């Protein structure tokens, strides 16, 4: 029988997990259940564990996470839509001793920002790109994204994505892996505790790679968008497993060990 009281357990020395101080106190503006929150948190945990808050500059996109700088307690720049890798290129080249990362959604990185993404990867800029792929444009109300699956409904593909008129979903991650300038390319998720732990390891590896000065680390995180997909968060995560993962399989696509 248990004689331990709650007060006994809830002592500061017994804390095994609490929200990192590198997230600000502000309540996240993301929808309930959205993977952005988890992705923000693992990035900030990695920066805290590496002790590099005072050396890191992050670049926020346009999209749902345009306000990422309200939640990440580091110096940040807000980039025009798609241009974050260009900002990051300059920031890193001008400040080689700092850790520089972009945090971008699928429209930002794979539509309007395609050139900036590919060329930063091609030049092998010594930065980290965090790519949140939820197959939809959340902020603007649920329109089709370059990563929207065939047949997937959105506000601009109300009858489902039609390959003939709208093209195929784009696998940017596989694309950038073909470029010699990328040294680490991986696809992760944050819908289960196991996936979150793996994703965090991947983010950690990406930031550690900056110390090597050998090229770009690209971490895609496939996420739900329960609002855009019009489901509950748990339903959206199940849908993601059944539909997104077969097309966007998780795992390391490129790892350059050194």
């Amino acid at each position, binding site marked *: 029988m248990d004689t331990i009281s709650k007060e006994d357990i809830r002592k500061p020395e017994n804390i095994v997990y609490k929200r990192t101080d590198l997230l600000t106190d502000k309540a996240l503006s993301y929808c309930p259940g959205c993977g952005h929150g988890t992705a923000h948190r693992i990035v900030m945990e990695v920066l805290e564990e590496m002790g590099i808050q005072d050396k890191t500059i992050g670049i926020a996109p346009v999209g749902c996470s345009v306000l990422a700088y309200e939640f990440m307690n580091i110096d940040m720049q807000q980039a*025009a839509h798609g*241009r974050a890798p260009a900002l990051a290129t*300059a920031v890193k080249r*001008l400040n080689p001793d700092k850790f520089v990362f972009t945090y971008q959604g699928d429209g930002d990185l794979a539509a309007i920002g395609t050139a900036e993404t590919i060329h930063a990867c091609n030049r092998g800029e010594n930065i980290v790109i965090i790519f949140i792929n939820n197959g939809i444009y959340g902020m603007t109300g649920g329109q089709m994204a370059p990563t929207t699956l065939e047949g997937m409904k959105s506000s601009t593909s109300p009858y489902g994505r039609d390959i003939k008129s709208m093209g195929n979903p784009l696998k940017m991650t596989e694309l950038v892996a073909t470029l010699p300038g990328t040294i680490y390319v991986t696809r992760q998720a944050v819908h289960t505790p196991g996936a979150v732990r793996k994703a965090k390891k991947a983010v950690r590896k990406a930031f550690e790679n900056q110390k090597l000065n050998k090229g770009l680390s690209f971490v895609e995180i496939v996420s739900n968008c329960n609002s855009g997909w019009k489901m509950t968060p748990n339903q959206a995560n199940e849908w993601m497993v059944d539909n997104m993962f077969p097309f966007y399989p998780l795992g390391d696509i490129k790892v350059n060990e050194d």
Partner: protein
Amino acid sequence: MSMKELRLMKGNEAFAEAAIRAGADGYFGYPITPQSEVMEYLMAEKPHERTGMIVLQAESEVAAINMVYGGACCGKRVMTSSSSPGMSLKQEGISYIAGAELPCVILNAVRGGPGLGTIQPSQSDYFQSTKGGGHGDYKLIVLAPSSVQEMADFAPLAFDLAFKYRNPVLILSDGAIGQMMEKVELQEQRPRFTEEEIIKNTPWATTGKTANRERNIITSLNLDSHVQEEHNIHLQAKYREIEKNETRWETFQCEDADYILVAYGTSARLSQKAVDIARAKGIKLGLLRPITLFPFPTKPIAELATRVKGILSVEMSAGQMVEDVRLAVGDKVKVEHFGRMGGIIPSPQEIVEALESKLIGG
């Protein structure tokens, strides 16, 4: 002891060399005629070995201006250069830079437009440069060089103004000035900013959040309209300050003039010759050369309007600056425009003939 140097250089190259000596931290550009020499010179000079300056050829003018934006957020002296069609691509980035109140230097070597146009010189980007081009209520400080010497002098001046006001500065050149070769006196090298200087002089810059301060966020986003209005009021106050302190112009034989030419850049060079030709014919002609197009020398033009019989705005365009001349003059005196378009450079003779037909004869 003076460490100045005398050289015979092309306008574009003089600007590039002067930028290195002005302590520039980074240049990000894309080739486009007639200014590719800026980046070619920088690449050949290897300023990274001289001062640590970064030179990077970007994948587009869009990428280049956004690299400038990122570098400017860090408190660095960063710059880009382009020509008219490329400047159109940069307008979003420029609006962001102005909205976020960041310092940077942009050079536009204007060519004939609209569209792909021609590669010959023009002055048809005046509206784009002084009235917007990008979206929103913002202004660029616009410097208009009319010699290779000014192309060199304006590099450090532009950086200093940019940092003084936390505003982008545009150097509005043209294909002729960029390509012509003239004697130029180069200033001595001044050092690039150290990290300590950046933290001290531009404490808003993203240098990494240390324990002794809050995080620095560089953004132009303000979803609260009241905050955004306050921000715009602040920007407007800044532009009024710039108008008060930074208006620059030059006059040539205006003291006894009956007629005035108003011209900048290449048109000013031609107009100066036109003044000589007119005077030889007995016409008391003078020239007012705006050196800043924003802020525009409204007051001196208004003053001249009270004592002359007519003003001719000479610009290689369909007439853009003439609107600002008219605004300055009101209905005090007749204002006309003369200019060639499509990249054609008029002769000083043509300018005098235009003066005669539009203002003097009848």
